[in-house]
């Protein structure tokens, strides 16, 4: 599901616009609402909005630049993007001192270490929760129930993203039990799991080698029927790593086969194992079962892949995955090697 900042920006202004039409007759309201999409795209300032809506819009701009443009930029452009991103986030915070998305994103870049960022998130988590709950409580009681539900949901999202980021950072810091606790907290708040925090949980269970915990977690999630089935790349990599840790290589290979079958160009992704920067707004929104999704999952599974002593310095599971994938898909290995040689030649 993931968080899409553009879509959320649209929803926020849409809800406010709908509220501004209150008291108008149905025909008038419908006529005006038809103009909303055009005005949102071309004449945003003409729409009713609060400072917090404006600040959130700046968050979407910063997210687009940092999360979606930065990974593809050359060094010179990267510096400009980072500077722009900071400036935009500063502006968002000055417009709305409670813009916790901007506060979190700014701190992600400013923190000197993973640990420092996690400490920052932990220290301010309660404050974020209180603020989001106040926003939710302030929803006018006369809103139609469906709209009120969406407003309540949007009000809590900055906190959900905050907790999901805490869980992810705790995992990176090697605090796996803490990561699991936070993931469960996020799931309690939002059983539909917009933040896809269950992916982080699957990796944390694997780090703790808690196989029965992971199986139980999968079974419970399946009962809720809200999320996708647990055949995503994160869960699959967690199960694969658990089998590998048990030295059940046959089962590990069966999981690898499933990954190769369920994702396009999975072999290349498994051989490359690119490490991407974390999304600063939230986990990047990618299509389920897409090539992007397996690339993203492998990047997050670095905590599993790069552990242990290995001659290549890659990590024990990382090397095993490359070897097994190359054995099963020699063409993919050749293609990756050719690409790497090409990149080296052109100095990339």
């Amino acid at each position: 599901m993931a968080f899409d900042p553009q879509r959320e920006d649209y929803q926020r202004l849409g809800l406010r616009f709908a509220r501004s039409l209150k008291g108008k007759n149905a025909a008038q309201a419908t006529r005006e609402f038809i103009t909303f999409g055009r005005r949102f795209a071309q004449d945003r300032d003409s729409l009713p909005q609060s400072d917090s809506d404006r600040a959130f819009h700046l968050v979407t701009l910063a997210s687009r630049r940092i999360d979606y443009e930065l990974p593809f930029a050359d060094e010179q452009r990267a510096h400009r993007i980072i500077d722009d991103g900071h400036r935009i986030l500063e502006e968002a915070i000055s417009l709305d001192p409670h813009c916790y998305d901007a506060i979190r994103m700014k701190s992600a870049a400013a923190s000197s270490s993973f640990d420092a960022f996690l400490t920052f998130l932990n220290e301010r988590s309660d404050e974020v929760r209180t603020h989001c709950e106040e926003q939710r409580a302030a929803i006018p009681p006369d809103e139609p129930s469906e709209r009120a539900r969406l407003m309540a949901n949007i009000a809590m999202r900055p906190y959900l993203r905050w907790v999901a980021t805490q869980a992810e950072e705790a995992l990176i810091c090697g605090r796996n039990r803490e990561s699991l606790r936070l993931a469960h907290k996020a799931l309690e708040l939002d059983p539909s799991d917009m933040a896809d925090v269950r992916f982080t949980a699957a990796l944390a269970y694997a780090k703790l080698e808690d196989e029965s915990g992971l199986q139980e977690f999968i079974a419970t999630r399946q009962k809720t029927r809200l999320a996708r089935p647990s055949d995503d790349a994160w869960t699959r990599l967690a199960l694969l790593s658990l089998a590998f840790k048990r030295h059940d290589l046959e089962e590990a290979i069966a999981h690898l086969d499933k990954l190769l079958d369920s994702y396009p160009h999975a072999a290349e992704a498994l051989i490359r194992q690119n490490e991407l920067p974390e999304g600063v707004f939230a986990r990047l929104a990618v299509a389920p079962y897409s090539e992007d999704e397996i690339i993203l999952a492998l990047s997050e599974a670095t905590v599993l892949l790069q552990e242990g002593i290995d001659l290549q310095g890659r990590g024990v599971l990382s090397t095993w995955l490359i070897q097994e994938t190359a054995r099963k898909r020699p063409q993919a290995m050749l293609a990756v090697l050719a690409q790497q040689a090409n990149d080296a030649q052109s100095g990339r």
Partner: protein
Amino acid sequence: MTIAMDARKEQIRRLALKRRRKLGSLSDEAFEELELAVREDPMRFVDDDEEQAFLQITQVLDRYEQSRHDDDLLDDEQYAQKREQRNTALVAACDQALVTYDGCVDALTLRLLALDLSQAELFDRLLETHESLRSNEGSVQIPVAGDAWANVFVRPRLRLQAALARTGINTSRFRMTCDLCMDLLARAPLDALGARFTCALAMARLEDEKGFDWLDSREGRHGNAWFHLSRAILMYKLGRIPAARRALRGFDQLCAGGAYLLLQPMYVDTYIPDRPTFEPGSFQESMLCVHEADPIISDIPDFAAWACDQKGFLASAQDFCTRNGFQWRNWDE
């Protein structure tokens, strides 16, 4: 560094026990006499292939140990070359011992360790050996009570299992490591091989506070480098920073050079076949402990930096460095 396995002593015991079995019952005094006679001239008492192979291992371990005496005088390249020659000789000697007697467990273990395989392959092959021996358990009597280490014929199997458990840490198989160590502790509670130290590290990595506490109380909470460092890691991972700080202070104050080694790790060669011997509280102990903990520390990206930031830790490390004539390396150099 002194290798831990006292092969000569084990051989004397083995030969004396086998001879007693042949002679029928002997009084304690007579057995002591017999042991003295074996010590004088062990070769004379070797009368089966198994002991012949064990003798070959004893001799090669002597040569191995002797060849390490002047390692400290060599530069990196010379050291690498000598190390390779030494390992090649060890593999060849193990091969010969296995020709003499293919069931020589120490030869199987030492051969794998000296082959300089990747840790992943080493684990695969040690595990394969361990499992194939376990399926043929019948040949060796493992006592149900008492300490298996007391049976000198079982020791090679215990050594193999301890080496496998340590390789489990290097290949991120912490649950298996714990299981292997707990099994060793159940069969040989006096734990001559120090499996509890390996287990402490694995439990810290798995954030298993209950397991660690059990192990710590079993140890009488006396601690040593492994227990102090494992506790610091465990508490840090669980976010209990004051407790982590106390454990780190213990590691710094009670383990010679602990702080220095955590910030400036030192190279330690493969254990042949066991963890080398060390004096309690010695620099050697700290060095082995930090070396074994390395894969776990690397998995906690900010742990060393956090330790460095704790009051007095860096100063203690640098002070130890200066006092002992080591050179402080800056990582950005």
